[in-house]
């Protein structure tokens, strides 16, 4: 907190609300991003019959310093952040990673010509966290 006070500009910024907005909604913070692919792009549509399109999604963004409440992160995340900032910067900052997933149903043709419907675990990211 004292550091941010030092960084605070002596002259109050013209527009206070914009100034505080950066603390309330920091830019490119860790969050879930959309990504859609079709198996025909990978040329796998010869043996993957369904679904035609698959949205695995992904997590990207900076992990704020005080992550406790917002991301369901364990306290260890803040400890790791303090280690990075104060003790040893070779220790990586906490990363923005998926926390929860949805399964995916896939219909495929097997090499022997038989057809299989299978439900795979953890194939679509639905929630991000900092760890």
């Amino acid at each position: 907190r004292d550091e941010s006070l030092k960084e605070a500009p002596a002259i109050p910024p013209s527009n206070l609300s914009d100034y505080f907005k950066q603390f309330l909604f920091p830019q490119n913070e860790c969050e879930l991003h959309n990504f859609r692919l079709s198996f025909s792009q990978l040329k796998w549509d010869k043996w993957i019959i369904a679904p035609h399109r698959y949205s695995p999604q992904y997590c990207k963004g900076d992990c704020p310093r005080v992550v406790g409440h917002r991301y369901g992160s364990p306290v260890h995340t803040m400890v790791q952040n303090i280690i990075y900032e104060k003790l040893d910067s070779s220790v990586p900052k906490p990363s923005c990673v998926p926390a929860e997933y949805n399964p995916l149903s896939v219909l495929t043709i097997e090499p022997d010509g038989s057809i299989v419907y299978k439900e795979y675990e953890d194939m679509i990211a639905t929630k991000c966290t900092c760890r």
Partner: protein
Amino acid sequence: PHSRARVVPDKTSGLVVAPEDTASELHPLLQLPKSLRRGYALLPPLLKVLSDRGPRNWESEAPRLQPDSRALRYMKRLYKMFATKEGVPKANKSHLYNTVRLFTPCSECKHRHRDLMKGDFHSVDLLFNLDRVTALEHLLKSVLLYSFDTSLPISSSITCMCHLSVKEHDFSSQVCPSISRSIAFSLHFEVRKRKWVKIDVTSFLQPLIATNRRNIHMAVNFTCLMGDPQNTKLEYPINMAPVPPSLLLYLNDTSEQAYHRWNSLRHIRKNPVRPRQRNSPRVDPLGDKGKENPQGKRASRRR
């Protein structure tokens, strides 16, 4: 294991794994260290390709046999019933299977006996190869799937007599006769727009599939009459040859990568907020492994 060059299909995943000494001559991926290779061999095909170094390995894969178009149509219909447009499994608690395999008979020899009195007597010898079923996939239900490509008037009622026999080749005895177990049953149904008829053969095939039988050899005799089964005068034979049936296996895949709906239901009830722990023991709904006894839970809570 006898001949150097021979490769043995791995029972757990149905994938081909070469014995130690021939690995280097085979697929470059098989030169992985043993520990990696064992994990790799366990992967179902979809995850195997996702973990490959690049699609080129997969494109060099041997071309696949094309499936039967009727079977493909049926499985697409099943997919639409079980999954949303995005491919997410529908929260359908009624079924515990997370895998459905459809096999078309690999060889059939038709012996057609015409018997005008009883309709078109149609007997087919079928051989199903179940190599793709892995040891981690437990059978829950098996069904013979018939599709009637007939121009029968819609909503006509049909009665069929079906005689099913399975030929098991008993290698233990010297003479090695082919012992066949058989079952006969009648089937009455209305032909509507949908031309699929499913015959549940679970109890009949269970002993074979439970013993990891790779090939199932069965003979199916089919006699069908159309009209009112009560009033035989109105019945007349149908000159229809049902297409040889496919074999549908509804399985519960107990591997790590498969989706276990009862686990996620259990997880949501237990800790609705925290992300799921990855190393939670998979609970098999049919077995009782991994279940805590209520006393133990209460005791730990009291402590």
